[in-house]
């Protein structure tokens, strides 16, 4: 099969042999790819240390069909994720981005918009943007782009309008906001503040897919973090590995990732 050039983000590297790596990539043009990179563990050669976790590369791939690994023949480093040199909270947030992308995307199902969102998110994590807002925007926009967005305007169970203002029920397994009639009969309901609904709406809006993430009021952060953790855990059938590390991005841990 012909080789293809594409931009790619490294989501995982696995030592395959003394000299080779298997890498999981999110490519911009072809979706997720698991590829064999022969000789990638040597310092010299067609990969030159480009295949590190969360690196952004320009790659040449020979796609294979079925369960066979794709073949990676070249990778040129565009940008390295550097947060791990200075801040653990930002590093672990980057790992979480990699994990979500790996769990939620598929081979042969490209989402260039999601790829661009991921790159922007990593750039923000590598800079000074608030980690919590940055992650929430990434999570909700990822859910939206992949068709898993929670409903915010209408009841997730019966479709009737749910009035604004005041506390409301959010059904973790039913997929979003619940009306007063459906709420009592639903399992796994989280009660949220009215302002949280507003923030969810702005984080999910199409306009929020690029540019600085919408602001998240500090007093709502814990509530949002909790409900999104549960929503994603339900969607994936179990908690992401990095979920427990996200505490490192919370205010109880200082900028250097030290526990207080």
């Amino acid at each position, binding site marked *: 099969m012909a080789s293809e050039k594409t931009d790619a983000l490294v989501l995982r590297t696995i030592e395959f042999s003394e000299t080779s790596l298997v890498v999981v990539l999110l490519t911009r043009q072809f979706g997720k790819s698991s590829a064999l990179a022969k000789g990638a563990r040597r310092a010299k050669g067609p990969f030159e240390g480009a295949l590190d976790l969360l690196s952004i590369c320009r790659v040449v791939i020979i796609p294979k069909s079925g369960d066979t690994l794709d073949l990676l023949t070249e990778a*040129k*480093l565009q940008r*390295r994720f550097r947060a791990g*040199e200075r801040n653990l909270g930002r*590093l672990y947030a*980057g*790992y979480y981005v990699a*994990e979500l992308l790996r769990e939620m995307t598929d081979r042969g199902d490209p989402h260039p918009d999601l790829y661009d969102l991921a790159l922007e998110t990593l750039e923000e994590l590598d800079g000074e943007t608030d980690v919590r807002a940055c992650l929430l925007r990434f999570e909700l926009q990822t859910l939206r782009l992949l068709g898993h967005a929670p409903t915010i305007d209408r009841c997730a169970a019966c479709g009737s309008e749910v009035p604004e203002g005041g506390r409301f029920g959010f059904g973790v397994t039913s997929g979003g906001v619940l009306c007063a009639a459906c709420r009592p009969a639903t399992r796994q309901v989280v009660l949220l503040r009215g302002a949280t609904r507003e923030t969810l709406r702005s984080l999910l809006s199409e306009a929020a897919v690029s540019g600085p993430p919408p602001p998240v009021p500090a007093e709502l952060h814990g509530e949002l973090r909790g409900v999104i953790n549960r929503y994603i855990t339900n969607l994936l059938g179990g908690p992401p590995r990095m979920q427990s*590390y996200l505490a490192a991005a919370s205010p109880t841990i200082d900028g250097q990732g*030290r526990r207080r």
Partner: protein
Amino acid sequence: MAEWSHSVGELVDQLGRLPGIGRKTAERLAYHLLRVPQAEALALSESIRRVRENVRYCETCFNLSEGPRCSICADPRRDATRLCVVEQPRDLMSLEQAGAYRGLYHVLLGRIAPLDGIGPDQLTIDHLVDRVRSGSFREIIMATNPTVEGDGTSLYISNLLSEYALEVTRLARGITAGSVLEYANREILADALNGRQKF
């Protein structure tokens, strides 16, 4: 090739499981072992047995060792004010072969890789902190691999050690000596600029 006898076939299988050795090479090695004097072939099996029976991790630094303490920890001429932290015993070997370092080591036996389910508790970080607390180190040199996870591991450890009165440094990175700037990529040049030092 004609049928191997059963025991030769087994040897080829065993050799073929070694890293970097394919079927053809395994067959060549097996054939070689059949041709050399018996004592020479048995010396190989004997050294494999001895290594597996005698070699373990040093109780102090987790380097490979034949006794409770490795030869580096037991050497009174080593500089006991410096401690170099590496991921694996093979990294320690590389630094030793470079011959430029006379201090002590600490081997982590891995790196923090949460995506692979490896947290700080699975490494020898607790032992490292104990050594630093009770030792007389003035400098800790972080020599983990220059990867995202290696850097993250170093950062985690340097945070832990920040309460002790010592200097934590890390290996320089950047342009290979003997190469030219023109061909170094942007990221390597950025590393080199970040790690610049005084003349």
